[in-house]
């Protein structure tokens, strides 16, 4: 199994659960979850990560703000970030892309292909059979 370790920051419980299950079962990655920006930033510092999946629309501190904080933090700034967003209108996507994230994954997504999409965006090789 792949030993990659990812963090998902999303305020929707069900979505975190689905994403975690999807990446664990399809790619064998370790997935850490956070339900808010504050929790997510703490988790990102706590242990090394290969990537962060970041929800855009969150209460209190939204995704882009979290991304900015991650980029400024020396401990986290090298970790690639992919936005997960239900805001799929063209201008929303342009705005996000302009921030410099590694990718944008629109909601809803195909759980069976999510790992492949992430790997593709980050240039990872997925192990055969996964």
């Amino acid at each position, binding site marked *: 199994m792949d030993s990659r370790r990812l963090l998902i920051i999303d*305020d929707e419980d*069900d979505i975190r659960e*689905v994403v975690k299950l999807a990446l664990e*079962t399809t790619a064998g990655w370790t997935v850490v979850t956070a339900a*808010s920006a504050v929790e997510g930033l703490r988790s990102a510092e706590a242990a090394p990560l290969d990537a962060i999946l970041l929800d855009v629309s969150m209460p209190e501190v939204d995704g882009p703000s979290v991304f900015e904080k991650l980029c400024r933090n020396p401990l986290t700034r090298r970790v690639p970030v992919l936005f997960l967003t239900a805001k799929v209108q063209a201008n929303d996507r342009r705005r996000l892309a302009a921030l410099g994230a590694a990718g944008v994954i629109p*909601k809803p997504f195909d759980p069976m292909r999510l790992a492949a999409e992430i790997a593709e965006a980050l240039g990872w090789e997925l192990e055969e059979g996964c």
Partner: protein
Amino acid sequence: MIDSDVEMIGAKNLPNAVGRLLGPADPAHPVPGRRAGEEARDSTYRGAPPAGEPGGHGFEGWRGAEAPGRMTTSAGIPTERQPLHVLLIENDPADAELVQAELRRAGFEIVADVVQEFREFEAKLDDESYDMVLADYNLPGWNGLEALAGLRQRGHDVPFILVSGALGEEVAVECVKQGAWDYVLKDRLGRLPLAVRRALDEKRWIAGRSRAEREIRRLNEELERRVAERTAQLEAANRDLKLEIAERERAQAEQERLLRQAEAIEARFRGLLESAPDPIVIMNPGGRIVLVNRRTEDVFGYQRDELLGKPVERLVPERLRTRYREELSQYWSRPHKRLLGSSGAELFAQRRDGSEFAVEIGLSPLESQAETLAISIIHDVTRRKQSEEALRLEKEFSENLINSSFEGILAFDRQYRYTLWNPGMERMSGLDKSQVLGQSALEVFPFLGDSGGQLLSSVLEGKSATIRDRPYRAGGSDRDRYFEGSLSPMQGRQGEIVGGLAIIRDITERHAVEAMKDEFISVVSHELRTPLTSIRGALGLLAGDRLAHAPQASRRMLEIAVANTDRLVRLINDILDLERMASGRVTMAKRSCDAGELMIQATELMRPMAETAGVTLSVKPQTVELWADPDRILQTLTNLLSNAIKFSPPSSTVRLDAAPENDEIIFRVEDQGRGIPPDKLESIFGRFQQVDASDSRKGGTGLGLAICRSIVRQHGGRIWVESALGQGSQFFFTLPLRHETARPAADQTHG
């Protein structure tokens, strides 16, 4: 008085030598004796009259008429009764006495002054006046000839007679030549009285003649003057006559030329008159028609004969005749070219059939032989009036359009300077047109922003442009507003582009609505996609066959799918409900119902949820009759109770009560939850405006309060919240108590 007979005798006694000498020597002083007896043989005298005489006739005639005896009456000549004043030049006193004695003996009364010296002689001549000078020839130191010369020198023509001793003939001749009247030898002194008498007579004759001569000369001069005068008159008259003749000839030539010109002009004028595009009527000062052209017949519908000699008012409508007469009389008081009907009151002409048409009449004087006529050229201005009116209306219309337009309308010239700024622009920009006109559109109110110059110049190149949703700032404001509009080039007469026109409208409100709509769509999209993401994810994993050996995870995924499907359904229902109410497609099915019953119903409905949450639900029902849609009121109450329970900590109480107040009932739902921040007290009634996004996890759609507000408003009530953070919230809504008047039954069953 000297007798003429004596004179005749004296003349006969004049020595021949002297008589010969005197005649041709001095014709001005002819010797009187010649006239009587010797003139016949002196042809020289007759043929050559004395100098100064204009001609011989007058002299001859005068001489013939004048009798010699009449000369004795001449004035200034001494008579016998007056003493003869004699100057006697004699150095021998004895001789002097002899001479005087001789004269007295002959009957002369004399007074004589005797002088011997030349100086003495001169003094006497200067002092005294003498009738006669008698002089000796040989004097001591001078002689008679010198005396004669002295006498002549002084201009005296007094008779001078030499009384001398022996005198040679040559001396005698010389003396006579020099003007001596006579000479008497002393030894023949007896001849002296005769010589004196003859000299006196001669003197008298000469005096008479010179008077006659003067008269003749005067007459002659008068004659000459008159002749000269007359001649001058005649010459002047002649000159005048010549001038007049020349003038007349010139005038006649001019007249002939003018006549020819007039004929040519008349011929041309007649042609012009007949071919003129306007009716031309010539009238006399009496206002009668003298001449009309063909066009007059065509336009007015009269035959020429029907108009000639008739009052010109025939061509004017009855109602205007008085005014027309006044205009005409004004014209005749000072005939000069003028235009009637061009300004002020309009002038009309009338055709034979009574129809009228607007005219302008050009009046001008026309000189004819007998009198001054007036030419009136009648120009039909109906068409012009119509087009002027049309133009005026069009202008008024466009001005109205521009001024009353809600849209901002502006124009600019080729230098981008504003040339038009309507009230719409003033409203939009906050700038008065006086602040803007003539200013550059790039500097004052640069409504097109940074790309303005480019856009304006492309308009000046003939391109039109549409502007959409462009921000601008009104004068003095720091908030963006938005406009849309169009830009188009404006063309001049030759099709050249003289500037541009912009019509713009403020769409700030619409822009805000659009932004809200976009935001709403974005939010709805997000809200719909969130449960869908969970559903899709869960189902995807189940379908992916990866969970075949993980029944727990599979069950969990199914639960997620079901829960999110419910959430999605609620969401869709709420959205549709709200939209239907907002669009007015849902009417409240109002009927009489009891507030207390509805409160109890709502509490019962929410009791399971409260129990689950460990929250106490307390209700104080108020029995009040309402005129309302009970289902909707129940929906409102359960929504509020549901919210209250969701945000209440366990073991807390949610209370529902109501109180009538004035004309309405006030419902209250009170909780002891976390409270609502002051800045959200208003906004939570908006769509998807949960205080916390995580609130959606509590099963809310984010539309509950928006729906409540909509229902309350449709019943004519109000809804609001009062809250203190950490202490809980109180939601209030009112419903009016008074029954509305009966409604059509159909309305009640609707919805």
